[in-house]
């Protein structure tokens, strides 16, 4: 056992309102400069939808992340490292600017400076790449709130996997939001892809950074990252990515995206993991086992053996304490309601998600049953607006059971708390039905619902 510490994040998608505040505060703080106009270290995607850059999840096309080769060894999907070196000058699996969007501005000054003329002055769009008049055809968030669903949503790579489960009809409409930052993976394929060794993982907290001095702009990291969260600064010719706001985190402040998240859905905390077992966990044969494998290498910070091993590795006492009260650890391993994004990429991502509940479909409602009652809530999980298969494709490589377990826990929390809310005796059978104690259910409620600042981070 070799204990290492990792800063990680959990986002509770059930609370995400899709407001994009995180995107804007992040962009204002980090990437509102020449060369990074199109760069959103943090973005929010409406699902179903294509994501940003478009269809980035289609690894059959983009070849990001890892795969198991015939010998069961982990190999970059874009090809082994030798091949990468050999093809360093031609990288076909790189999203073009069009796959993001061509950033633009407007000739706003016209509004003030227009001479007397026939018509009301208007600010026209100008490309920030060419400086010329442009027609806007795509943006950083084109399909927000299912905009253009008829034309574009079918290209959602997840939908293609579950195909016939989703119909784009008014009555069947569903959507939710997926905010994304760099996953700061335990097994980062960007770093492994970099021919220059410019991408590294900080030993003390696992934050993945691009060394701006060493980066030579080969852009293999961009291809290698299956989440497409490394970007190319076309002015400096270097790769840039989310830094987990390390200048803030180092002084005890949450990341910008987390602190400014007005849905209060982001949690930051320290995890302890066994670095010796990362490769093994990333190499399990069956994709469906990856979620559990990833969870299994996260160490129990209350285990005396783990604490001793951590101290042996030189992890400071207050870091171990931080790991013990880590909300991220609680959500991932104690309550087991947070799931990794696309574990099948085998990068061991460190930004986890609580999947969203969603309103029950007409089926339940029209029975005339009270959908808030516990038995109906559970029944309703099977009839959620968001097809559970869709969530499973995001978080568990398509395995439905873990997602179902999470949603049942959330439903049980609501049901259990309703009695308390109305001053009735709580029903202990409710947490028992989802394998939780009353105390744990209440503590989970506290973390998810009250979500106090000093408990979120």
């Amino acid at each position, binding site marked *: 056992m070799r204990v290492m510490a990792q800063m990680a994040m959990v986002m509770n998608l059930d609370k995400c309102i899709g407001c994009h505040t995180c995107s804007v505060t992040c962009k204002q703080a980090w990437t509102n400069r020449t060369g990074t106009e199109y760069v959103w270290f943090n973005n929010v995607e409406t699902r179903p939808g294509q994501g940003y850059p478009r269809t980035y999840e289609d690894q059959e096309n983009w070849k990001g992340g890892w795969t198991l080769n015939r010998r069961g*060894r982990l190999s970059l999907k874009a090809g082994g490292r030798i091949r990468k070196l050999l093809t360093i000058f031609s990288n076909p699996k790189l999203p073009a600017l069009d796959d993001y969007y061509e950033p633009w501005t407007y000739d706003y000054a016209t509004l003030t400076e227009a001479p007397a*003329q026939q*018509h009301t002055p208007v600010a026209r769009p100008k490309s920030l790449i060419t400086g010329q008049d442009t027609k806007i055809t795509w943006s950083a968030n084109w399909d927000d709130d*299912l905009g253009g669903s008829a034309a574009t949503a079918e290209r959602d790579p997840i939908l293609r996997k579950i195909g016939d489960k989703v119909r784009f009809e008014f009555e069947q409409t569903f959507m939710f939001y997926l905010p994304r930052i760099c996953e700061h993976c335990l097994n980062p394929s960007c770093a492994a892809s970099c021919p220059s060794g410019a991408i590294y993982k900080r030993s003390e907290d696992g934050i993945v950074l691009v060394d701006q001095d060493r980066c030579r702009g080969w852009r293999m990291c961009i291809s290698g990252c299956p989440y497409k969260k490394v970007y190319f600064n076309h002015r400096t010719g270097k790769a840039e990515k989310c830094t987990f706001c390390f*200048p803030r985190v180092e002084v005890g402040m949450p990341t910008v995206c987390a602190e400014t998240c007005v849905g209060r859905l982001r949690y930051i905390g320290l995890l302890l993991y066994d670095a010796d077992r990362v490769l093994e966990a990333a190499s399990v044969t069956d994709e469906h086992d990856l979620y559990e494998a990833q969870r299994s290498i996260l160490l129990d910070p209350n285990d005396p053996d783990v604490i001793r091993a951590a101290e042996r590795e030189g992890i400071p006492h207050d870091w171990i304490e931080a790991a013990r009260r880590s909300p991220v650890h609680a959500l991932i391993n104690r309550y087991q309601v947070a799931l990794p994004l696309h574990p099948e990429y085998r990068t061991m991502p460190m930004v986890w998600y609580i999947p969203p509940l969603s309103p029950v479909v007409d089926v339940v409602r029209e029975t005339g049953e009270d959908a808030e009652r516990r038995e109906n809530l559970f029944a309703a999980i099977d009839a959620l607006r968001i097809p559970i298969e869709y969530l499973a494709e995001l978080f568990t490589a398509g395995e439905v059971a873990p997602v179902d377990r999470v949603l049942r826990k959330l439903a049980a929390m609501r049901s259990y708390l309703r009695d308390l*809310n109305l001053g009735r005796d709580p029903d202990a059978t409710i947490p028992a039905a989802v394998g939780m104690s009353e105390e744990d259910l209440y503590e989970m409620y506290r973390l998810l619902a009250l979500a106090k600042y000093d408990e979120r981070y």
Partner: protein
Amino acid sequence: MTPEKPGLDNGLTDALVRTRRYFTKGKVSDDLRTLTKAGGRGADDFYRDRWSHDKVVRSTHGVNCTGSCSWKVYVKDGIITWETQQTDYPSVGPDKPEYEPRGCPRGAAFSWYTYSPTRIRYPYVRGVLLDLYRQAKAELHDPVEAWASIVDNPTLAARYKAARGKGGLVRATWDEAVELVAAAYVHTLKKWGPDRIAGFSPIPAMSMVSHASGARFTSLIGGTMLSFYDWYADLPVASPQVFGDQTDVPESGDWWDAGYLIMWGSNLPVTRTPDAHWMAEARYRGQKVVAVAPDYADNVKFADEWLPAAPGTDGALAMAMGHVILKEFFVDRQTPYFVNYVKHYTDLPYLIRLDEADGGYRAGKFLTAADLGVEEENAAFKTVVLDAATGQPVVPNGSLGHRFGEAGKGKWNLDLGSTDPLLTLAGTETGSVVVQLARFDGGTEAGVLSRGVPVRRVAGQLVTTVYDLMLAQYGVARAGLPGDWPASYDDRTPYTPAWQESITGVPAAAAARIAREFARNAADSKGRSMIVMGAGTNHWFHSDTIYRAFLALTTLTGCQGVNGGGWAHYVGQEKCRPITGWAQLAFALDWTRPPRQMIQTAYWYLHTDQFRYDHFTTDTFSATRGGIAGKTTADLIALSARLGWMPSYPTFDRNPHQLADEAAAAGRSVGDYVVDQLKSGELRFACEDPDSPENFPRILSIWRANLLGSSAKGNEYFLEHLLGAGSSLRASEGVHPEELEWHDQAPRGKLDLLLTLDFRQTSTTLFSDVVLPAATWYEKHDLNTTDMHPFVHSFNPAIAPPWQTRTDWDAWQTIAEKFSELARTHLGIRRDLVAVPLLHDTPDALATPHGIVRDWKAGDCEPIPGVTMPKIVEVERDYPAVAAKMAALGPLMEKLGATTKGVTYDESASVDYLRAKNGTIRGGPADGRPSLRRDIHACETILALSGTTNGRLATEGFKTLETRVGKPLHDLAAEHEGKQITFADTQAAPVPVITSPEWSGSEAGGRRYSPFTINVERLKPWHTLTGRQHFFLDHDWMAELGENLPVYRPPLDMSALFAEPELGTLTEHGLTVRYLTPHNKWSIHSEYQDNLFMLSLSRGGQTIWISDQDAAKAGIADHDWIEAVNRNGVVVARAIVSHRMPEGTVYMHHAQDRLIDVPLAETSKKRGGIHNSLTRLLIKPSHLIGGYAQLSFAFNYLGPTGNQRDEVTVIRRRSQEVTY
């Protein structure tokens, strides 16, 4: 499961990667996967440097969103870099979520404006005008004469007016621009009078001092401040009707307390972004959440159930839910909590007289003490119940008749004593009669429902109770009563669940079940069921009926005045918590009273000539033919003005200075003189001839607002008639009003000067004659509050106002100084004559017993100022002293105190405090007065003069109220009696406010704010006729409109009213669809819609959302250029096609303005319009009622709404080649 020895690639790769260890300082992991590094990293300097900054300043955004979010503004090297939210709000308690962070992406993008190319850096004047002015001044040497020579010359005036909005703004100096503006003011006062000048700045809560700046100047010179809450259609007229209150709602933290939450036409994640988390989190506490929305809106994602009611039919769903609640919780089985509540806090037990009509009966008026023959003070305003024990009529305490006068002292309370009021006469009746009730579900023509009520005779009058009428109205059958009743919920007659299904599309079973759950939760939790209601239901022509149907649900179930329960109206409801201090400052009540305050909807309806394009008379909306039959809307506006119901400025067809002088010369009081003149017909109301030049509005100043890019319903009518700038208007003229002079040629360019202060270019600035550069919200001091949270917090300058920008406070003082200088020679001291409407919360509310309309012009009565017509008040205007008065707090503060909602506060001690705090002015007209020179002085003054921020005032205010109510109240504020919140406090952190009689809820002990808790817990009456919440309204016009009781009224039929094509019509011109303008995810009104970040996150220009079915019918693909055309104008936009949209309805999100990527329209060959190019004003007659109990005017409290939801448009794909 895993290979025996996990590894990477193959051996060769391993070897290669191992070599990296020798070339880097990092550490390659043992398994060769990755590289780690510790310590000594210089390569990340860029990001460390990027993060560093010199200071962080607290400020916020003075934008009309009610977010009231405190922000950290980061500054580096004197440059604003970015902003993130503050997280230091005081805790709401250990067992609740908190108000942190607050903010949204729009606010997070604000700093972009500071240095953006749309920033207005210098003063600008329309070039044509500036040339004319310079030339005239060179010849005449006097600014006022120069201005007069231009505007009084029709050729010259038309020249610059026609150039409005077409470029050609040129830079000017502050001196020159302000001189021109001041000259215009002086000339207009001299020639036309002060009521021809208007100021518009909305929503004081968002930046009180900035609002007060121009409002104070406008008020000091006698100009008219235009209302906004009613104009925006955000005012729920049902609130004054039902509660006698403008609007008072729970803070968002109180959603947490609810056990059941219906979001009804309110898209919380989009329109209440910083508050939405309370809803998301309360679900975890077991709260059930229901969304009613026509589309799959952002909030539907959170809801346990989605009821997709067709647009504008929400009232039908609510009526059916009321039917279920009345039947199951009152008739089939009585719910003790509900019954007790409605007896104490509603008008349900009160007696209504029944009048014979058309062979049946109609509900008439409230039975009053006067009907009982009681001869005592205000007997006609004391309503009556029957006591269950004795069967005798009783006059309970707390009605309007107890509110004013000596005899009512100590009796204005809700204490029923030993009286147990009878809710229904059933069982004690002497018979039953069939009453005729209006129904409107059949289309344009009103129908009739005939249903019986139990009756008795009291004092010779046939009466029943409001409750019995309610059961008849809702169609809840009881044994033995005659009439037509639904047999079951499946009977498709009003107002059953099955009936509503045919209208709303919501399954009957679902409607019934949600109603049942809502009420069951309320019964179980003692009132903790809540309805969050929003613009989706409040912006309709008949929204007051929709809301009354909602409020019936929350009131019947005992949820109003309970934490976690009741209505939560969130549409522009802004709450200026320190309202008393702000009002004194803004309307210069410290120097001169009364101010002129106008209902903006009626103002523009007349002055933009929209009245000329109405094709119907108002009985179109009536259930029966009465006093308003055959009248146009404009006729009713004139009637409302002359009866003193609603304000009307310009008031008379003569300069009020001249009128005052004539009165003096005649030796008559101004009131007597005006009455004489009116009776003789020599003087007329200006609103009877709005197209005559002496009645035009001449100057409009706008600050903190974008009228033409945002709120101006009937945008093209504004451009055409008010500005004379040309337009895409296509409508034809209609019915001539009876009482108005009709001019064959409609005027163009009524307005002489449009002045705007702003920091960014908008449609309003582009059409303005003078644009002054304003400081942004990160460049000034100010105060901010909201009703969404209970804190007051501050704006502070992160940088000094850059370029030539100035704060609003400074800019208006600059204007005032120049104005006063020019006034010395041109104006001096003048007498002014102000016509004041009958006001709410004053004895004026007693002017119209029983709401029986009497028109002095028709000979029904004599014109008596303050009773049957407006009060006429003479005021002195010391124009040369205006600048001095602007900058100092005047002496009326000690002399008269400050009055809010009927409670007068003694401000003497506050004035002494402010002399010391702000410093004292020495010399001049304001010698010895507290200074208001600086914006901080204004902030301190607002805080010192208000009960919410000055505990002494709150406590004393409650003591004053106690003498009237006769119940203890002042303990509510006593915990903070010694507390004076200072501006420095608000700079340190958001500060919770103090419970004050200025509002209806208690925050004592740190509880969450919920409205009317003081009414419910302390038995303080509502400000209504009965003193209770009203289901029944007995004004003549309410009866004529068929709206005595909650009722369903469908959206207006635009093909019947204006010959627009029927909905769904598909021709070569396109598809006819319902046209809605909901709030925008990427802007707050027009603010931020031009912001590059918001445009990059959306689609970069104007868009219209359309369903995939409609798009297919009209041949429209996603992102196609389309044109939307109706009689009001033309819009060019891109289509967004989505299956989340309901068929038959399109959304053009509100206030995208026309400045960003809007090409020329094919239809008009002109610049494409904005969302309001397709709308226009339509005024509902009942909104013009005044002078009667809670239906009395107060500014932004009652008035016609500028609704815009009932519109339709034809939409088609246009040529994809666009030109600009």
